[in-house]
């Protein structure tokens, strides 16, 4: 059942109608199959780009749609509910565009953004490394000044769209000075010295490729630097604040999909002579699931409205990511339970949604790291 949404403008309703139409006709029918076969749906990103859905929160000047996060995230939620590889892909792409959009100079923005937001160029975001995950500032990929530009060497781990992206937003070290020694670079696919590992064999979200990105003597011009030297970690964290809201929206989408599937099944499946939904033990479970999904949605929208109002929102975004992804894990697990044995097999969507939910507790800062962010904000001197 379509989620009833109070959107801020009539145009946002038109936008959601368009998204639902594309989901029903182009995305939902193939999600399960693509997922089983581990096929990356690159064509869907082209379609979404043409429909103007890949640059929603960015300014119109360079091909964006100037939509508030409150609206953009609800689009991500709907996409993720139909096909997480697409919803999360849109979120990661939006994250990858952020440094150029927010810190790039006018020339770079005019050059790169129209194609990034139009769907011709798909993005990837390279922060994690094999030895530095939660402790992202411990990254060791180096960018050394040379010939008026940079030479980059290192290995990036877990890159969503690694090997299929058209550009890589790479955090690399320009000095030994801890977080302040990190800088942000724009690296186009095809740059000599760039290569990729075999895509990871994952528990879920198999049609979204995740791979190592290896940089071996990659030569970049001075204009590849986004923002100032040493500003990279700040840019990466600012990007992640928004990215975490994207992950929260994805989690709500997955949880809503699980709730919808479980509810429909519980009304149809009969045991002891009646639909299982009529057993209070099961009906109350569905009620809890629905309440948790609604609460998670309310929390990410609350954080989004702070952001849209130009207020600091990082802590609230961390709360939304933490709560929404834990909720998705709980709700999808319960959905499998509602399906009984049928929940454990691939013929029904519940098991896929449960596998998909798990990754959301890990990416863009594990939920332990979200708690760290929240507790630090609480105990910091004002």
């Amino acid at each position, binding site marked *: 059942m379509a989620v009833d949404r109070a959107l801020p403008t009539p145009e946002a309703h038109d936008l959601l109608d368009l998204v639902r139409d594309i989901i029903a006709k182009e995305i939902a029918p193939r999600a399960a199959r693509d997922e089983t076969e581990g096929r990356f749906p690159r064509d869907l990103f082209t379609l979404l780009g043409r429909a103007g*859905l890949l640059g929603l929160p960015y300014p119109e000047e360079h091909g964006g749609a100037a939509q508030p996060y409150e609206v953009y995230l609800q689009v991500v939620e709907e996409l993720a509910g139909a096909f997480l590889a697409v919803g999360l892909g849109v979120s990661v792409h939006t994250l990858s565009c952020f440094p150029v959009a927010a810190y790039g100079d006018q020339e770079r923005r005019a050059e790169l953004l129209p194609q990034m937001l139009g769907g011709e160029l798909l993005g990837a975001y390279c922060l994690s490394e094999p030895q530095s995950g939660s402790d992202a500032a411990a990254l060791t990929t180096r960018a050394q000044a040379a010939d008026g530009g940079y030479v980059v060497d290192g290995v990036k781990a877990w890159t969503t769209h690694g090997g299929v992206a058209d550009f890589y937003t790479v955090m690399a070290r320009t000095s030994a000075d801890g977080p302040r020694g990190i800088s942000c670079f724009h690296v186009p696919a095809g740059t000599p010295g760039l290569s990729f590992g075999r895509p990871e064999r994952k528990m879920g979200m198999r049609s979204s490729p995740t791979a190592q990105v290896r940089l071996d003597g990659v030569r970049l011009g001075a204009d590849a630097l986004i923002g100032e030297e040493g500003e990279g970690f700040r840019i990466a964290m600012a990007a992640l604040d928004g990215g975490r809201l994207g992950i929260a929206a994805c989690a709500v989408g997955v949880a809503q999909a699980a709730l919808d599937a479980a509810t429909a099944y519980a009304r149809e499946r009969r045991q002891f002579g009646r639909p299982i939904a009529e057993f209070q033990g099961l009906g109350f479970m569905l009620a809890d699931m629905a309440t948790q999904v609604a609460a998670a949605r309310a929390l990410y929208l609350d954080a989004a409205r702070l952001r849209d109002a130009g207020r600091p929102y990082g802590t609230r975004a961390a709360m939304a990511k933490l709560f929404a992804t834990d909720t998705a894990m709980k709700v999808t697990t319960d959905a499998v339970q509602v399906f009984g044995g049928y929940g454990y097999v691939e013929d029904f969507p519940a098991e896929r949604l449960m596998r998909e939910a798990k990754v959301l507790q890990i990416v863009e800062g594990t939920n332990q790291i979200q708690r760290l962010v929240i507790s630090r904000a609480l105990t910091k001197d004002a």
Partner: protein
Amino acid sequence: MNIVVCVKQVPDTATERKLSSKDNTLDRDAADGVINELCEYAVEEALKIKEAHGGEVTVLTMGPAKATDTIRKALAMGADKAVHLVDDALHGSDALGTSHALAQTLKKIGFDLVILGSESTDARTGVLAAMLAERLGTPQLTLARKVDIDGSAISIERVTDYGYDKVTATLPAVVSVVEKINEPRYPSFKGIMAAKKKPVQTFGVADAEIDTAQVGLASSWSEVTEFAVAPPRAAGTIVKDEGDGGAKAAEFLASKKFI
């Protein structure tokens, strides 16, 4: 080139469609109105021709006030402007009446090429393109799965039972298309926004000099005198295979005179 696409609003095929007990015509308020599927292909083809040869695409819709939703959809796909023919006098028009009304309007607004879907999912007469061409005195190129334009020459591949015919004519002309012709685009979000500002001109019967004696329910040559709701589908018969399944299936088919 001045291209006019005729676009119809039809009840959503996904919802239950009803006839009105008042006058035995389609109850257009009972179901959600959507753009007739084949009309999307017609709009797409018009946009492609415009992209290749330049010109302007006008949407022409005859239908009640709520048909504006459908007009907006066609405009969001990229059409430039629209004419909405709306008048109570037109309610209940059959294919003959509709072709008269549309032909009169087309004469008023002018055209080099008229494109239609080959049929609508509600009435499914499939004759409108031919009737329109006759009334306008232009060639008719129907059931096109491919359209080529070269200067004032137009040729199509017309779908037939055995393959296709190549049909050639000179513009102005009327073309109807089948779904093999293209893959309609989705409107973009920007297209949806832009569509709200595109001009939609409203015509009544007087504006288009439509002869009211030829349109409307009373003037229809055909009349629906009675209708019945389709009976719910009966449950199937389950034949249990006890080694004689083949014989039983054959028996069943024979009883229905299939074999």
